[in-house]
């Protein structure tokens, strides 16, 4: 049993370890290690395409994290007031949206957006004043952000719902009993109680969006995010530069995930 476990863990983590190790390769080729150096990190960071893709990813991931934590929290607070069939229905839909494979979300969003754009663009052109150039809706930041938020919002809802469920309902009543208006009760009592879950949701959403390739590949249009850049550059062969980018993404993701874990644990202990 123990041997199997070790084998599984080796299979999981050795390739990741090798990527990290080879990112410090002093040589030109990804396959042979010739001393250690951080030159590929310098190369990667000074590559304008990498920088461009990195900022695209950052903008998308930040927007997704902000939007999904705001909307997810609002949805979780509203859902907790629902009862009966409506609640069961919404709960089901939320879990389904977490389980739907990324490729399905990617294709579905692509088809939906293309259809809507095809319908709206002529309409916009027809109502636009003469002479001015009508706006043309197309794939870009907004479409990636929308597709990612669709998925990550459900994660935030699930996390915040769990937190609310564990919260003593009497705290809200106590606050109202002590003359706090509903709004003040929300930010003086409810929010401090659920913010670890919101923070964790924010970080998980950011990580998911920052790392996601499949959905972004379908709906990013002309914008290249970091995972898309990595994918396109490995078609030209795996270079230590790609390893360096991968390692940086890994480091950022791990940091955020650990922060999320920590923030979920922090207050649950008490």
């Amino acid at each position: 049993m123990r041997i199997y476990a070790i084998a599984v863990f080796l299979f999981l983590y050795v390739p990741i370890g090798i990527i990290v190790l080879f990112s410090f390769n002093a040589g030109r080729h990804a396959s042979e290690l010739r001393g250690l150096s951080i030159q590929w990190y310098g190369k990667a960071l000074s590559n304008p395409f990498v920088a461009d893709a990195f900022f695209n990813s950052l903008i998308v991931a930040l927007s997704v994290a902000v939007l999904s934590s705001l909307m997810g929290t609002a949805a979780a607070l509203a859902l907790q007031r629902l009862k009966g069939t409506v609640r069961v229905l919404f709960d089901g839909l939320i879990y389904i949206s977490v389980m739907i494979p990324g490729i399905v979300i990617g294709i579905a969003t692509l088809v939906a957006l293309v259809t809507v754009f095809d319908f709206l663009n002529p309409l916009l052109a027809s109502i636009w004043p003469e002479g001015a150039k009508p706006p043309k809706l197309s794939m870009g930041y907004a479409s990636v952000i929308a597709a990612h938020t669709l998925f990550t919002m459900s994660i935030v809802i699930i996390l915040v719902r769990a937190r609310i469920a564990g919260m003593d309902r009497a705290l809200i009543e106590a606050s109202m009993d002590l003359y706090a208006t509903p709004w003040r009760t929300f930010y003086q009592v409810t929010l401090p109680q659920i913010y670890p879950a919101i923070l964790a949701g924010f970080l998980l959403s950011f990580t998911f969006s920052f790392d996601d390739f499949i959905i972004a590949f379908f709906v990013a249009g002309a914008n290249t995010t970091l995972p898309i850049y990595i994918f396109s550059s490995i078609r030209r062969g795996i270079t230590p530069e790609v390893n360096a980018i991968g390692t940086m993404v890994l480091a950022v993701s791990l940091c955020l995930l650990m922060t999320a874990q920590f923030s979920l644990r922090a207050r649950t202990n008490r």
Partner: protein
Amino acid sequence: MVDQSTSSREIDIEFRGVTKRFDDVVAVDNVSLDVERGAFFSFLGPSGCGKTTSLRLIAGFEQPTEGDVFIGGNSVVGIPSHKRPVNMVFQHYALFPHMNVAENIGYGLRQRSPKPAKQDVDKRVDETLEMVRLSGYAKRRVWELSGGQQQRVALARALINHPTCLLLDEPLAALDRKLRREMQIELQTLQREVGITFILVTHDQEEALSMSDRICIMRDGRIVQSGSPRELYDEPVNRYVADFVGKSNFFSGEVVGSNGSGVTVKLESGQALTGIQPKSAPGLANGSRASIAVRPEMISIKAADEANTDSSITIKGQVMNRIFLGEHSEYLVATEGYGDVMVLSPKSIEHSDRSFVLDDRVALSWRPDAALVLGDA
């Protein structure tokens, strides 16, 4: 202190025909009552009797389906809890875990508009901490405190606002027995000091009896009887109240007749017993189900062969069990035709010749006015 002469008739809380339904369940059913200013009032009853819902109707967490609730003479129907001049001590205290003791206690003051100056809040918090004997605990985290200390923080958090009325929802249920006794005394003292109306919800009859001026006994959303602890104990309106408040021996049967001196009830065994009806109880028609109730401490126990010269009711039996309770002894006596009877005999009359052991033949007797005839409702 409140001036007793002018305040004695003022009503702080009033229910007029209040009904509260949750879907099909009637939690409070057409209840009318009033609570005088400065009173210590208790709702007493088993779980699900509507006592907590009544308290929540006063706090504003629930709105009545029908009827009217008044606080200080003004109808509060439709007014949300944050606009009502009452404060509550919750069953599990509901202290804010992300705030320290002082922040918890000052919470109500900080919600006022205009917001009071910080040093005023701090000063009031310090005074209140002193009142509940927690000076020096201001900066503590609430979860570091013991149950009794948390209880006092919850009290302070409510009382600092000088509410018209303090609501207490089973406030002592989470404390151990000894601490509960101490807090009962502390609550009474505190209530006398601040002169605020206290409304307590409890299922513990001992707690209600020992602390309250007035008790309202509830069942299935209705008031069964309300009155002073003594009234409820001495003159219960029916068997339910007598059973809930203190201990009683019940001999149930059917009313067969009544005259000026009392009502006679024929038991299933064919024996008849006579008792008097409490003043406030509804009359009993012949043929209706009723019980004769006798408090265990009102029964005297003697050896069976001892001469019986007075006019009291006497039944014979055999000692089945004896429990020594310190100041009392509790006997369980099997009687012929009257079932098992519990007798509480004070130590002062438990001389060696009056103390009985298992299987002793004994005679039980009580004065005619110690037996109450109660409807089985």
